[in-house]
């Protein structure tokens, strides 16, 4: 008989593992990826592939530099794929191919591996990549086109939020909620269709990869915040529904804010985190210089996570 194993209890482990969690996220992102490829055409598809490939390669390189073993397995555990795909979702449809490369590089090498790799990063890697690109290449990052079926030559257009910021409410109202929902309005690759994102998030909720606290609190707070202003002056402020379905709220609240590594551990903390994200997004959209504030809101709240964690510890049994 071979040597039998001695180890610490428990000797049974769940069949769920990191890879499954991460590829569940990839599966959940697929509907949105398909829709953006359909609407924005081959270039969008190429951006997604480039971003994912760069992310995985960068991950492998960083692991090699860090002297880790099992590089192939760790790089393909899905976390880099998710980061790359989310980064691509944050690019405008006409973004040059090199923005996807630079964004993924920054996301994986700087936002993730300088902190120690998976599990140790303070900020959501894809969002750091996006913000880095937005600040470094503002022109390329804010050139929007109108989604048409499998488009090959793009028609320039403004996003609903951009229109709201620069041209005022009336221009923004030209976009129907329905269009926002289905994805027939200009925007980032992943932002166009709220329906596709909701379908993906429902899958994640069923698979218990994400919890309801962050998305509900995020979107709820944003609705309440913008709703108050809408009620005060409907002539100046857009209605809450417009705010919820336009821009990156759905993508951010459902997929970026819910990133396990950069969100609080406890349910109570997740509620605070969601509320904070919603509030900051609202403030930036209504009063800030940028038309969109989701990325900044989530990054700011990421920074607050250690603090939230410290003050929202669960109450232990028997006290």
């Amino acid at each position, binding site marked *: 008989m071979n040597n*039998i*194993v*001695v*180890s*610490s209890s428990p000797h049974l482990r769940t069949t769920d593992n990191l890879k499954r969690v991460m590829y569940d996220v990839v599966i959940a992102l697929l509907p949105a990826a398909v829709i953006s490829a359909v609407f924005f055409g081959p270039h969008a598809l190429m951006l997604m592939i480039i971003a994912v490939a760069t992310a995985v390669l960068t991950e492998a390189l960083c692991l090699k530099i860090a002297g880790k073993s099992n590089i192939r397995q760790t790089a393909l555990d899905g976390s880099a794929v998710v980061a790359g795909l989310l980064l691509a979702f944050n690019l405008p449809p006409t973004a040059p191919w090199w923005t996807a490369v630079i964004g993924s590089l920054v996301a994986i090498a700087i936002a993730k591996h300088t902190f120690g790799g998976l599990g140790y990063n303070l900020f959501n890697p894809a969002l750091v990549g996006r913000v880095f690109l937005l600040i470094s290449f503002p022109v390329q990052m804010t050139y929007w086109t109108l989604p048409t079926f499998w488009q090959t030559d793009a028609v320039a257009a403004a996003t609903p939020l951009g229109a709201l910021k620069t041209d005022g409410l009336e221009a923004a109202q030209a976009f129907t909620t329905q269009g926002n929902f289905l994805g027939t309005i200009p925007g980032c690759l992943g932002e166009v269709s709220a329906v596709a994102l909701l379908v993906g998030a429902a899958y994640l909720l069923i698979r218990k990869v994400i919890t309801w606290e962050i998305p509900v609190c995020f979107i709820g707070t944003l609705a309440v915040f913008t709703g108050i202003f809408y009620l005060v002056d409907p002539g100046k402020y857009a209605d809450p529904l417009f705010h919820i379905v336009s821009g990156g709220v759905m993508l951010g609240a459902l997929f970026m804010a819910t990133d396990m590594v950069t969100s609080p551990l406890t349910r109570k903390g997740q509620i605070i985190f969601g509320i904070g994200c919603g509030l900051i997004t609202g403030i930036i959209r209504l009063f800030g210089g940028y038309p969109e504030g989701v990325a900044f809101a989530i990054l700011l709240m990421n920074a607050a996570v250690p603090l939230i964690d410290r003050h929202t510890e669960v109450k232990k049994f028997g006290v």
Partner: protein
Amino acid sequence: MNIILVTSISLGTIALIAGLVLFVASKKFAVLENPLIDEVEEMLPGANCGGCGLAGCRAFAEAIVNNKDTSLNCPAADKDTMNDIAEKLGLQISGGARMVARVNCQGGHNSIREGDYLGIKTCAAAVVSNNVTLVCPHGCMGYGDCQRACPFDAIRIINDIAVIDENKCVGCRVCVKTCPRSLIEMTPYDTRVYVACNSPDKGPQVKKYCSVGCIGCKLCDKACEFDAIAYKPFLAAVKPDNCTECLECVRKCPAKTILFRGDDAMAVKPAASDRAETVNV
């Protein structure tokens, strides 16, 4: 032009005021400290090993300068350094014979293991969950807690056993405190004969699990002409004061448990492969 003038004047004023505040603060709240403390600290090895019993080198320097405590000794510093410090402070520091850590076990691959341990690869973790695979209840498990704890890189795990490079060892006792089985002991550097076993079990018991363990046969005691063997029940030990290094006990020991570390044997150079393996545990 005007703008430049205004900004430079206003910023200059702010800088001036801030500088003044800092200057006043540094004078007013300055903590008077004996400059000797800094100097002594500078001379110390700076490993903060805690071997002196105090919390690091700074604490040692403070204690020796402020209290003139001559009983203090930095185990990590060599004799010259301690003499220099003593000279600087006008003290007489006794110091003792140089002590080094020795592992009272040479089991490793000579000792039987049962089962494969999977889990957190540290000795403390194996002990706390009763997952020790080494059958000998007293021997070195070889997961390298001492190696990781040693501030002077003097310990290597070779063939699943801790081996101490006595030339690198400064006697800080960190490993002694770390070993969950308490089988590392401080012994005088100059006594090169020692019993590399920690098992007080009876002979037949020891033979079941280890081929190089002390079986308590007392042959060494009988062989020694200088009364240098202390015999605890079923486990021999060398009395450093009496040992003349005649090596009669080393020759007589049937299990080759008593070791003589000659000068050339002390420098332990693990093979490259061993090193990589043991560092990554």
